[in-house]
């Protein structure tokens, strides 16, 4: 047995004839921050979807804390301690900011339907605990003054932060961030990097993030995995990756070859 939090072994996903992820391996040790990079269409988000149970792999295993989680539904994966954000932000637009976060803690409540219908003392206690935790996270992410706004009315940057708050609600062990810095300006990216590091410290998180901005990857990741055409082509520290010839080739195209954008 290894001590890795997550081990992906030989993961393959084919959509019809298109192989989106091919024999992919990755190990993530607890407490680390790993970057997953690669050109557009390399299969990074598909890996996230495979880990979280949103799509079923064609073959391979995803072992989380020693248990193969392939075949579990997304909500079951979440309950084991893996949560994620989405590349294209998927908040509950018509719910308030506070409710967007509270909803993510719901399954931990032992107050059931009946308690809710009659507003029992137990229901009130649970609701108060959930609300307190949600407010704490919102203020950590600088959203405490927004709690009654509808999520769809927030500006873009705040929506990204709200999605992170929501993902942290259930005290995940592994956090998957899908392009958290997309669409941000350099100053915002800097603050985001600090935020990710402080959250990681505070909640003892292990993080896997997809990112295109090299500043983020090189700045905060301890380990980087590079994908191209569904395959893992390199793995190592940021410094090693920067000088890896296959990586440079994947991004810039073969010298003299037909670089397909």
């Amino acid at each position: 047995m290894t001590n890795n939090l997550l081990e992906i072994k030989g993961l393959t996903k084919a959509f019809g004839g298109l192989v989106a992820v091919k024999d992919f391996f990755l190990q993530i040790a607890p407490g680390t921050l790993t970057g997953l990079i690669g050109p557009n269409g390399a299969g990074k988000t598909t890996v996230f979807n495979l880990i979280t149970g949103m799509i079923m792999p064609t073959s391979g295993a995803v072992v989380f804390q020693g248990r193969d989680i392939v075949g579990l539904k997304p909500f079951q994966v979440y309950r084991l301690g893996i949560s994620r954000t989405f590349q294209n932000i998927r908040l509950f637009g018509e719910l308030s900011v506070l409710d967007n976060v509270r909803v993510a803690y719901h399954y931990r409540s032992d107050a059931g339907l009946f308690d809710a219908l009659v507003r029992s003392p137990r229901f009130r206690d649970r609701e108060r605990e959930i609300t307190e935790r949600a407010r704490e996270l919102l203020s950590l992410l600088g959203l405490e003054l927004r709690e009654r706004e509808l999520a769809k009315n927030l500006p873009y940057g705040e929506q990204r932060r709200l999605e992170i708050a929501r993902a942290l609600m259930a005290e995940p062990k592994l956090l998957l961030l899908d392009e958290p810095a997309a669409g941000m300006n350099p100053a915002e990216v800097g603050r985001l990097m600090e935020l990710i590091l402080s959250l990681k410290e505070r909640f003892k998180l292990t993080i896997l993030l997809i990112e295109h901005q090299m500043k983020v990857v090189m700045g905060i990741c301890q380990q980087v995995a590079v994908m191209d055409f569904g395959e893992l082509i390199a793995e190592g520290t940021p410094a090693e990756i920067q000088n890896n010839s296959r990586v440079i080739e994947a991004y810039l195209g073969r010298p003299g070859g037909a670089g397909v954008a």
Partner: protein
Amino acid sequence: MTYFLQQLINGLQLGFVYALIALGYTMVYGIVRLINFAHGDVFMVGAYLGFFAIASWRLPFPVAIVVAMVGCALLGVLIERLAYKPLRRAPRISSLITAIGVSLFLEYFTSLKFVFGPYFRAYPRPFAVRTYELAGITISNIQIIVFGVALVLMVALTLFVNRTKTGLAMRAVSFDHQTAALMGINVNNVISITFGIGAALAGAGGVLYGIAYPQINPFMGIMPGLKAFVAAVLGGIGIIPGAMLGAVIMGVVEKLTEVYISSTLRDAGAFAILIIVLLVRPSGLLGKKQKEKV
């Protein structure tokens, strides 16, 4: 066996009428994602236009069909412009409720005594009914007309959609309104044309229904409309051959349930098939599987 074949032909006759209605449903849904509940009532108006053309204005039968088609096309375009177009950016359910409103309005307005009146009317037949026997199976000239007219219209529609520039524009708009608009297509006109064509087909269906099942009233469009819509879904909504296939299946199943099981269970058979098909192939028999993008 001959009895079975006989009933199959009767089922096909019903299916062909459903197909003419189902085409309008499927085209409109394909282009604006709207379940146009008023479509069955346009079919009813078509039946009445044919009725007046034959009984009151003494027009020959082919002209009566044209009158019904043109009248319904105008009605379809009018409904689209007045009731649906202003809601194109509103939540989809708003257009659906409006469609229901238009449907109720057409039913109750035409029920008024100075319009069509609330009673049943016997449909005039512009010619004597003849039957031909072929290997023990009887086919009437009415059935031949229904098959003939429906087939001609379906072939014409298929050619129109696949071979003309307007047909190409319709297909483009059904994929993506904005991109189509960027390609220089007048999206509003294409949508109106789609409603017009769909309504014209339903109008022809109304006349055929009238001569085949010779009794009409202002509420006659509800059930055939629903069944035609279900047929469109069965075949894969938005897909023209799918609507034809689904409609034929609906008609045949309905007829066979009626004669082999029980006439009171007639409607249950077709709907049971619908539910089963949806569970096995949610996008219909000829529909493409759609996967949500994560």
